């Protein structure tokens, strides 16, 4: 074999492959896009031209950041709001609740989305950044569904203690007497149970374990946080799609995820008092209305202390509330007007319906709606 010919003809290939290699080396590491913020807004500065407060033709750029849980709802809100005000650009960087609160309290963004309300320290920091107190507005209520993959078993019902024991590894097969007791009519196979949880830190996990700790305190003795207790058995999936993919992948799996994401997976009805409640937007709204306000908050700061152990009929207790966090005063009138108009739209019927359609969230009740609208009205501008 004449290698020199081979070489000559392969030379272009070699060059191309070397180039491909270099390209691959440069381009193959997009992984950090998760944590970096390429399209980070450069602050809440409005580029608006008209300083007229309350002018009909709003324009400019409004920047927010925060929870990825409300991302699809926020996208619907932005689309709807920009439809009404074509000259306005609203940006939302779904970098996570913690990042959103941090950027808000440092004054980098005009509003934040967060699965948790501001704590005292953050409230103080936000007051410095805003020049006035900041408030949390519960505008996104997302039921968390318990999805399972067990062909032949429909309408699974799980009481809170059973659910907690499944996820803490005490109950290991589907025909366990405790599950049978919750489902007298079902024929349960002896398939092994594989509980699936989130591998990343998330508000969904935090709300789910908060529910377990409140409704089944004997069975769930672990620390309540956004991170799943690492000592427990089971599988993990990265973010909501990862959990869904894991549940779809094998029989006998059970996981929790935002109700909008479960697709055609079966979901369990959860035991509340003496009945079992399927998740629905209405059932989620019921528990929010039945829950008291968190104590010690400022007047307009609407923070809900979810009654996870509620026995209210028709309430679905596993919900996530994601707040929109705004200042009660904005020194830059252009930004303030935009925030007022945008949050006003979000709290309106139209905004809530748009989120329900896009993200499967539960529209907030009319009472809560009017309360939020009053807070939005009271935002001082200029």
């Amino acid at each position, binding site marked *: 074999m004449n*290698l*020199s010919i*081979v*070489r000559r*003809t*392969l*030379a272009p*290939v*070699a*060059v*191309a*492959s*070397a180039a*491909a*290699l270099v*390209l*691959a080396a440069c*381009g*193959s*590491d*997009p*992984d*950090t896009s*998760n*944590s970096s913020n390429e399209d980070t807004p450069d602050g809440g500065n409005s580029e608006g031209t008209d300083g007229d407060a309350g002018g009909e033709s709003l324009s400019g750029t409004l920047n927010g950041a925060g929870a*990825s849980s409300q991302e699809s709802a926020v996208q619907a809100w932005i689309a709807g709001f920009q439809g009404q005000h074509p000259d306005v650009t609203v940006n939302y960087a779904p*970098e*996570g*609740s*913690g*990042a959103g609160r*941090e950027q808000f309290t440092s004054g980098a963004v005009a509003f934040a989305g967060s699965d948790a309300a501001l704590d005292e320290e953050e409230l103080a920091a936000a007051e410095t950044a805003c020049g006035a107190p900041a408030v949390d507005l519960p505008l996104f209520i997302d039921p968390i569904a318990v999805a399972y993959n067990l062909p032949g078993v429909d309408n699974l019902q799980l009481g809170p203690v059973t659910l907690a024991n499944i996820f803490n590894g005490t109950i290991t097969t589907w025909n366990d007497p405790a599950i049978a007791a919750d489902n007298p009519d079902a024929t349960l196979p002896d398939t*092994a149970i*594989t509980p*699936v949880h989130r*591998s*990343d*830190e*998330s*508000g969904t996990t935090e709300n789910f374990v908060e529910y377990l700790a409140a409704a089944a305190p004997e069975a769930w003795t672990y620390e309540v946080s*956004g*991170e799943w207790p*690492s*000592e427990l058995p*089971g*599988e*993990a*999936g*990265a973010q909501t799609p*990862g959990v869904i*993919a*894991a549940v779809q*992948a*094998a*029989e*006998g*799996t059970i996981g929790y995820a935002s109700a909008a994401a479960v697709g055609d997976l079966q979901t369990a009805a959860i035991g509340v008092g003496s009945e079992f409640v399927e998740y629905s937007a209405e059932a989620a709204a019921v528990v929010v209305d039945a829950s008291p306000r968190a104590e010690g908050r400022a007047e307009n700061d609407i923070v809900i202390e979810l009654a996870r152990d509620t026995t209210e009929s028709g309430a679905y207790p596993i919900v996530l509330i994601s707040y929109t966090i705004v200042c009660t005063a904005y020194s830059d009138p252009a930004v303030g007007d935009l925030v007022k108009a945008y949050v006003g739209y979000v709290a309106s019927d139209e905004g809530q319906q748009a989120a329900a359609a896009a993200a499967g969230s539960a529209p907030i009740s009319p009472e809560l709606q009017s309360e939020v609208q009053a807070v939005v009205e009271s935002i001082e501008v200029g």
Partner: protein
Amino acid sequence: MTTTAKPPPAERPATTPRAKARPGDRIFSRSAQVAGILILVILAGVAAFLVREALPTFTADSSEIDGGEGFFSYVWPLVFGTLAAAVIALIVATPLALGIALFISHYAPRRLAQGLGYIVDLLAAIPSVVFGLWGIQWLAPQVQPAWSWLADNLGFIPIFTGPASATGRTMMTAGLVLAVMILPIITAIAREVFLQTPTLHEEAALALGATRWEMIRMAVIPFGRPGIISGIMLGLGRALGETMAVAMVLSTGGFTWSMVTAGNNTIAAEIALDFPESSGLKTNTLIAAGLVLFAITLAVNMFARWIVSRRSEFSGAN
């Protein structure tokens, strides 16, 4: 192909009259110099940033670190997971890549070799997210029965202890996905090196009556060894740092010896998963973990350099 490198100026015969430096020469040499210095500055900057941001982790009370027992006990399972996934990937990818490279360089008909080369290179251009999706949705369910079999029949070996994951999303699967991702890197480098084997060596081996396989064993592989090693090390670097595919495919969890159950995690995946919702000391801890990965990768690369330079008399490959 790569022999076009100009001889260093020092070797220029002294009798040659010194060429007058033209503006083009000066501009080029200066910009090359700047580029060279810039990469050092960037690297130093990254290292300085990592160290600065990681410092609070080392000074903090050990009970405040994730896990409550200090940074070391937090990071070692991650280091183990990182190395385990990379080793699995290398064990699978290396023989395969060398086989492909030899086939392309010495066995395949010219047309086929060309096409195959392009296809392997194409593999390197697929984003890792796509590999992750492929891994979680297709590969994991396909290989799950194999892991179950390993757990049932070879469960006495610690790395195959059961029960096997029901979804197949294990270290082994993550290692397989990584193997596919590093395959083009090792293949491309090994192929280039094999093609550079001096024709005289090959022809001499054949003339002495060697079969083609014997010729490859006697002439091609010894010549290409430094190149093979640096290719493997580049692949290893990629496997160590790969984030998204592992984060998506692996069912992460605490430390376990078993490679066929859910559990373990890699440094890069841990950072990607936890960074978005992290704040305060947790962020510092993650960055400190990144610093550890940085150090591991640096060590691997320096080791590869050392091996290659030790055998630099073969030239071409480094």
